[in-house]
């Protein structure tokens, strides 16, 4: 076996041996079950009268519905163009924030609301970056950091009963940590201190998210203890992964555990391939 390509071909052929041992699944029988469920779901679909009972009371009347349509259009218009790009201190910024509040109210379903909250947290983060880059006023930066923190905590709290959103929450908090660390390096004085506080809170949230035992249906959890002082400065394209982590997964009743150990320094080149260690 001379080259890695030849080895990969060999592995693929061995893999075929394994796959051949799997007894074939009954595709049609499984689909019959699924389509029976789809049929039931269609028959059980709530009537228009019933479906409206899920909406807030003020939306149940015709006037309420018309008002909701107008508000939705206003929200849609206000979230594009100049309003969408408005940052704290600009004239249109209060319109943007008001539109976000309306958007959240009009969004049906708890899961969708959490996703909207995550979206708003991303916007606050972007606003912090913009304010720092443009040397924004200290009070505005601090207020935006507070809004960011509050929005993120809202998303985390609301997602506790929605394990399917956990990865998205972890992603946004991880991203937040990275951005705040970068911003902290670019700032001084009281703004730096304020960013540092927000960063600390983000790191605590991230630790809690990744170490907390969850026993929610349909979810598995992974716990990571980051031993580095600052956030792991990992990039997916080029850079050096400096973190050293060890992992533990467990459920509340202690019945499922795993240990993952990763302690490698990986240098990834510009073409996204690892650079061999000397």
């Amino acid at each position, binding site marked *: 076996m001379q080259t890695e390509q030849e080895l*990969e071909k060999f*592995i693929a052929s061995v893999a075929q041996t*394994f796959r051949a041992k*799997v007894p074939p*699944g009954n*595709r049609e029988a*499984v689909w019959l079950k699924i389509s029976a469920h789809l049929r039931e779901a269609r028959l059980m679909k709530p009537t228009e009268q019933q479906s409206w009972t899920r909406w807030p009371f003020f939306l149940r009347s015709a006037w309420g519905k018309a008002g909701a349509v107008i508000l939705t259009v206003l929200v849609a218009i206000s979230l594009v163009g100049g309003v969408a790009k408005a940052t704290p201190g600009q004239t249109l910024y209060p319109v943007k924030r008001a539109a976000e509040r309306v958007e959240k109210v009009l969004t049906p379903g708890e899961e969708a609301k959490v996703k909207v909250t995550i979206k708003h947290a991303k916007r606050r983060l972007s606003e912090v970056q913009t304010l720092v880059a443009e040397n924004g006023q200290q009070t505005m930066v601090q207020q935006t950091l507070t809004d960011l923190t509050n929005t993120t905590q809202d998303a985390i709290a609301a997602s506790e009963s929605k394990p399917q959103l956990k*990865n998205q929450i972890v992603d946004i908090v991880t991203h937040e940590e990275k951005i705040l660390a970068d911003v902290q390096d670019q700032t001084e004085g009281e703004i730096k201190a304020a960013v540092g506080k927000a960063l600390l809170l983000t790191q605590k949230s991230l630790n809690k998210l990744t170490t907390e035992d969850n026993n929610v249906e349909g979810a598995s959890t992974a716990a990571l203890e980051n031993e580095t002082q600052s956030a792991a400065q990992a990039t997916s394209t080029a850079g050096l992964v400096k973190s050293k982590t060890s992992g533990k997964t467990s459920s509340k009743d202690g019945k499922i555990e795993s240990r993952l150990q990763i302690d490698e320094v990986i240098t990834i080149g510009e073409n996204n*391939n690892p650079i061999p260690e000397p």
Partner: protein
Amino acid sequence: MTDGSKKNTNLDELVRKAAQGQEAAFSELYDLYFDKIYRFVYFRVNHREQAQDLVSETFIKVWGRLRDMEDFSSFNSWLFQIARNLVIDYYRTKKIQVDLNLLENVLIYEDDLVNRTDVSLQEKIFLEALKKLNPDQQVVIKLKFIEDLENAEIAKILDKTEGAVRVIQHRAIKELKNLLSNQDAN
């Protein structure tokens, strides 16, 4: 448009239609993914009927959540994550203590295969060499080659980035090459 990107666009379109409630599109998605999902589940529960039940639950759950999906391009990885979580729930309800790492590393036939007489000597040597890799490397090789999953799907299952999966695979192949070369030399 390349074949790859055309295929992705067709898949995104299918997912979009299924998310809009079109059962015909959902049925096409089922046809596309049944084999992979069934094999994925079967390797972890080692029981045909149970695997079929879990596959049907997976697709039923997917149908229920499709309309909330925002990024259709991550459908594959999302589908596998749902299947994986259902397997974990299956073990929970059976009150079986399972090491999650083992669950990822499971390959029911592995030990049995090493002792089978119809497995070639080279294949046995490969299986022995595979066991010498670290757990992450073993899992990635198995998911990639034996279960025929894409890097994005593997990343989602293992809760890692695609970049990390590529690095692990690269190192695993390199390590296997060294192990098998040493074996040849001996």
